[in-house]
């Protein structure tokens, strides 16, 4: 019998990273169950299948990506098995006493903890580990588990899907994001932010202060409780750089901070800085772009 790990697979890089990472948990063997084993998505049923598969395989650990779906299913598996669950780990030492390093505060703080469990359940924080070349996990045949599902595990299932509103690229995928914070001062103040974003073919973002004040919709918020972005450049105007905000924009390739306060935290966290009143600087940048076209 091999000492296998079991991984929940979704589309996308975070699951590939989790599966590659899972090689470190047993003898290098990894089995997988797809999150789409039941369609539409039914998280209790997927957790039930994972539980059966883990028991039959005597899996040494069960892993998933630290995505919405990954954390959802793994927490259900943890609840139904009574085992502890560590979300969003970035490293692990799978010895006798398993030490994990995991993200707190959306990654602004790291925690080292001992996971006391016969079968560690973890999710791997997206983009915290790299995937390499390997044949990939062995897919578990789930037919029997599906046939034997308890109907109670099908109560929570997606009944309907609403397509995203059309029109342009999403904030999460935008190449350029121009954001405003408290320094913008009002809902109307965002006109100059919108103008610059438009000239650069980018999206408008904002900080949490702005959505709490009702100046912009929550869908524009960049941050720990908003959208996590990874543009080529992030232009942060009148944003101080609280950890809550930086947790959302640290994935940006470059950050330009425009702030009247040279001592604001963001001024030392950015690649480029302009000290000045955004109400003067931002229109001047827009004018300069127009002048050169």
């Amino acid at each position, binding site marked *: 019998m091999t000492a296998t790990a079991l991984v929940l697979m979704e589309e996308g890089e975070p699951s590939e990273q989790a599966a590659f990472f899972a090689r470190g948990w047993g003898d290098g063997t990894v089995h997988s169950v797809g999150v789409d084993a039941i369609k539409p998505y039914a*998280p209790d049923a997927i957790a039930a299948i994972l539980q059966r598969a883990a028991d039959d395989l005597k899996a040494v650990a069960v892993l998933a990506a630290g995505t*919405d779906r990954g*954390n959802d299913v793994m*927490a*259900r598996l*943890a*609840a139904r098995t009574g*085992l502890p*669950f*560590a*979300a969003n780990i970035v490293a692990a030492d799978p010895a006798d006493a398993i*030490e994990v390093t995991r993200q*707190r*505060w*959306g990654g*602004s*703080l*790291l*925690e080292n*903890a*001992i*996971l006391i469990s016969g079968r560690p359940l973890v*999710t791997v924080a997206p983009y915290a580990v790299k995937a390499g070349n390997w044949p990939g996990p062995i897919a578990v045949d789930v037919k029997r588990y599906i046939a034997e599902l308890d109907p109670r595990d099908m*109560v*929570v299932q*997606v*009944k309907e*899907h*609403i397509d*995203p509103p059309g029109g342009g690229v999403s904030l999460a995928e935008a*190449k350029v994001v121009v954001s405003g914070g408290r320094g913008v001062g009002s809902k109307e103040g965002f006109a100059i932010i919108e103008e610059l974003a438009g000239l*650069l073919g980018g999206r408008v973002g904002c900080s949490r202060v702005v*959505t709490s004040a009702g100046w912009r919709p*929550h869908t524009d*918020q960049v941050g720990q*409780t908003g959208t996590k972005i990874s543009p*080529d450049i992030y232009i942060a105007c009148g944003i*101080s750089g*609280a*950890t809550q905000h*930086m947790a959302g924009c*640290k994935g940006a390739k470059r*950050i*330009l901070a425009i702030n009247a306060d040279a001592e604001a935290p963001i*001024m030392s*966290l*950015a*690649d*480029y*800085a*302009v*000290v*000045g009143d955004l109400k*003067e*600087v931002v229109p*001047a940048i827009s*004018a*300069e*772009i127009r002048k*050169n076209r």
Partner: protein
Amino acid sequence: MRVLVCVKRVPFTGGKMVLTADSMALETRHLGFTISPHEECGVEEAVRLIEANGGESVVLTLGPPEAAEQLRDAMALGIDRAIHLQTDGQEWDAQATSSAIAEAVRADESASGPFDLIVFGNESADAGGYQVGLRVAYALGRPCATGLKGVKVEGLTVRCEQDVGGGRDVYALPLPAIVTVKEGLNLPRYPSVPGRMRAARKPVATSNPARPESQLQLIRLTVPGGSGRQTKLLGTGPSAAPAVVGMLREIGVA
């Protein structure tokens, strides 16, 4: 109807994470505290549900004596009464927290009748465990949908909307149910002065559950290394515009 919302007291972290000398906690001496952001929307939703349907709303927290402040904040927004599972300030792991909450829910329901809906935040701002709501749901044998940006009670079911890749997935759960919500569900109101005065007189039931051994034991906290970015000052005031645009050209976005 009866609605329970569970909240956690967390610090406002500001610009920098500073740890205590033993690296076991955040240094919070100079920080203010708040209800964890997702749960602020949970409180607002509970208040709206009772405004629309009538009944009773209850707020629950597990936390130190100081967490009474967050219970008063919730009651100032319109929650009717509070349950405080008081700790000595030590951190409780997700399993211990959810067992204590499930037990408190059972006790309250045996005295006052079942909660149609129990609302949690999707994850706490500080520990980010992503599991307390689901563990309580399993303990109570109720269906649970997570990470919701839309919650609508329709007769004997609750319609739940969850963001997924820009679009939304929709669930319909039979009541009683448990939901975990995210910021953006609604725009929470600000407390009024009369609301604060009423909150001071609303009842808080306090108990002191025993803390079980943790199965996810904290060894230490660390602040991850700097951003690795070297800041280049491009200028001061509007005269910096040419340098900014030069940089934008260089990276191919202007």
